[in-house]
């Protein structure tokens, strides 16, 4: 059979062209709709993945920061050893990524996530007590990868002019017995006198696990007081339990530094008085060993020390031997000046006039504790460390005379700061931390008693095993 192609008629040709154009338009429209639907779907998926990745990365930073905090304050080993030896959260040190003095640690976090991993990195300076760190975490969800970065600062976590860790009692009195029971008592105020506890910028006036009892007339803002925190989630840890992993300072470390050349250890009160009575400023760490048998315990008087005790650095009263209790005291009438501030412009009640003499500027750099080696027995002090101004162990230094102390005052024992003379100033710019309560009194006339919080004195407090320090975020980037 022969097929003969008949030439198309003119109108048939036109129909084919229209059909073709219509087909193209329909196909294009279908394709455009398909593209729109597909792209929308892809974008939605990408958006979901992006959000998930951001969340996972953020969570990774938080988990890594928690790991860092645990390692930082764990006393079992050194900081870096803690990081690499965790049972379930061990980090790997990336030797190739190290800069000259930087250490990089990495781990893959899988929990608490479900079917997801996050790669976290911790970058720190090579130190037993680094002051800053950077934590980053990367998470990939689908084909979206997100990284979160946080810069962290390690600093002392509690901010208050007076920090009392004792559980105290329920007593509401403003007497000495109530204070000796572990509470904080602020009692005053005499005619023309000031009795001030100032939380300053960013701090509370008093943070206590026991009660804080303030007599009428004292300047302690009720909003600046946090009390009866014992046994609650807000409790201040017992930093004063000496010999435990939780104690804030190891006194022997300071004694070692003094004996290594950054100060002097006086084995009895007489030796210390002889050194101090010239009025010379004793630089570095001055350690005074005190025994209950020391017949000169009560000789820190204005008569014996007309120029007072002048320290640039740290003064440590080391109650040695047996027989000491938190209330076994010696009274000091002489002036105690440690990192003394210039108080010539002091206006009580105006915190902007609360000057500081901290940090001390050493005239003899060999007395600076950072310049002596006490390693490996104790960690060396390092540049930027905040050292306490006044320390004493179990016993009581009952300060009745003029006081001008800038820095941290710490004792696991009990503190009495009593302004016992008219026209006298007792001034502490820093933080007072104690384990057995505090009695702060000014019933004299025309006298000034001020305890003012200064974060600058304890931001990098050189605590044992970084006890009391927490991580604070200074910068967060996604």
């Amino acid at each position, binding site marked *: 059979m022969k097929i003969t192609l008949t030439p*198309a008629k003119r109108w048939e*040709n036109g129909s*084919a*062209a229209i059909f*073709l154009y219509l*087909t*193209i338009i329909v*196909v*294009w429209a279908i*394709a455009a709709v*398909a*593209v729109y639907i*597909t*792209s929308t779907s*892809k*974008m939605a998926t*990408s958006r979901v993945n992006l959000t998930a990745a951001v969340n996972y990365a953020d969570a990774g930073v938080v988990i890594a920061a928690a790991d860092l905090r645990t390692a930082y304050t764990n006393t079992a080993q050194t900081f870096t050893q803690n990081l690499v030896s965790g*049972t*379930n*959260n061990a980090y790997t040190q990336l030797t190739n990524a190290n800069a000259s003095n930087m250490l990089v640690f990495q781990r*893959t976090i*899988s*929990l*608490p996530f479900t*079917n*997801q*991993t996050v*790669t976290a990195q911790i970058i720190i300076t090579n130190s037993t007590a680094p002051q800053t760190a950077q934590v980053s975490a990367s998470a*990939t969800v*689908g*084909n*979206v*990868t997100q990284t979160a970065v946080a810069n962290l600062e390690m600093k002392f976590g509690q901010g208050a002019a007076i920090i009392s860790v004792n*559980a105290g*009692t*329920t*007593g509401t*009195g403003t007497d*000495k*017995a*109530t204070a*000796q*029971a572990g509470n904080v008592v602020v009692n005053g105020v005499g005619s023309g006198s000031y009795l001030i506890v100032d939380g300053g910028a960013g701090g509370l006036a008093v943070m206590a696990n026991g009660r804080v009892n303030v007599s009428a007339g004292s300047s302690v803002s009720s909003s600046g007081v946090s009390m009866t925190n*014992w*046994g*609650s*989630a807000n*409790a201040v840890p017992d930093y004063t339990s000496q010999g435990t992993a939780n104690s804030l300072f190891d006194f022997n470390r300071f004694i070692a530094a003094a004996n290594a050349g950054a100060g002097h250890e006086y084995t009895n009160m007489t030796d210390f008085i002889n050194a101090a009575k010239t009025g010379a400023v004793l630089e570095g760490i001055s350690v005074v060993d005190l025994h209950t048998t020391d017949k000169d315990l*009560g000789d820190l008087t204005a008569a014996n020390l007309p120029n007072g005790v002048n320290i640039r650095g740290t003064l440590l009263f080391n109650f040695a031997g047996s027989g000491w*209790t*938190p*209330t*076994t*005291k010696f*009274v000091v009438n002489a002036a105690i000046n440690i990192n003394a501030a210039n108080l010539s412009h002091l206006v009580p009640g105006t915190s902007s006039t609360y000057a500081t003499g901290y940090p001390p500027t050493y005239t003899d750099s060999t007395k600076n504790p950072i310049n002596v080696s006490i390693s490996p027995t104790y960690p060396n002090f390092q540049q930027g460390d905040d050292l306490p101004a006044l320390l004493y162990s179990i016993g009581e230094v*009952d300060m*009745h005379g003029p006081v001008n102390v800038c820095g941290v005052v710490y004792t696991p024992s*009990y503190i009495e700061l009593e302004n*016992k003379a008219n026209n006298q100033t007792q001034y502490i710019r820093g933080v007072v931390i104690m384990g057995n309560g505090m009695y702060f009194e000014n*019933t004299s006339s025309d006298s000034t008693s001020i305890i003012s919080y200064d974060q600058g004195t304890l931001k990098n407090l050189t605590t044992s095993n970084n006890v009391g320090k927490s991580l604070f975020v200074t910068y967060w980037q996604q």
Partner: protein
Amino acid sequence: MKPRHLIIFFVLLLGCALWFRSQTKAVTPVAEEPAAPIPSQANPAAAAQQQSAFDAANQARSQQLNHLEQERAWRTKAAQLTQPAREQLRMVHQAAWAALISTNQQTYLKLLHEAVHSKNGKVPCTICGGKGDLDFCIVCGGTGKCPTCHGTGKVAHDDCCPTCLGTGKCYFCNGSGKMACPFCDDGIISAKAQPPPEAMPLNL
């Protein structure tokens, strides 16, 4: 339909297909990356171990808070009984307190007289030797231990001792065995100071 029309049609169709493909690629320019390994697939044992540690840490935190709460309740309950417990002890030791006050009353009045007439209104206390505390404690007998719980901090049924609130220390001398001198403050008798109370203080 002429063959050239069919060719044009297919070319256009192919063009549409290519355009569609290019649009699809434009939406997802990021190259496909291999997904992170899922821990349960990568290392099930490690994942299970981490899960176990995570749960244990959570449980430990929970238990710690629970323990704190129980301790607080234990102590708060005892604190409600502190006053009656110390009042009982006062009844026992009031005679000794009264004897201490009366024995030294003449000396105290003499010193107070001197303080009133002194330049700064203060004189050293000779009753305690200027130390601020005595060499004994009338409540614990100088042991420093709480007379109710004998230093354990606990009473019957492991309840918190209401007298010392669990510290085990004598509330009157704070465990030192040396009570504060009732006549002075830190070894100084002041003209402004109150005389010692007739009733033994409860130190609440």
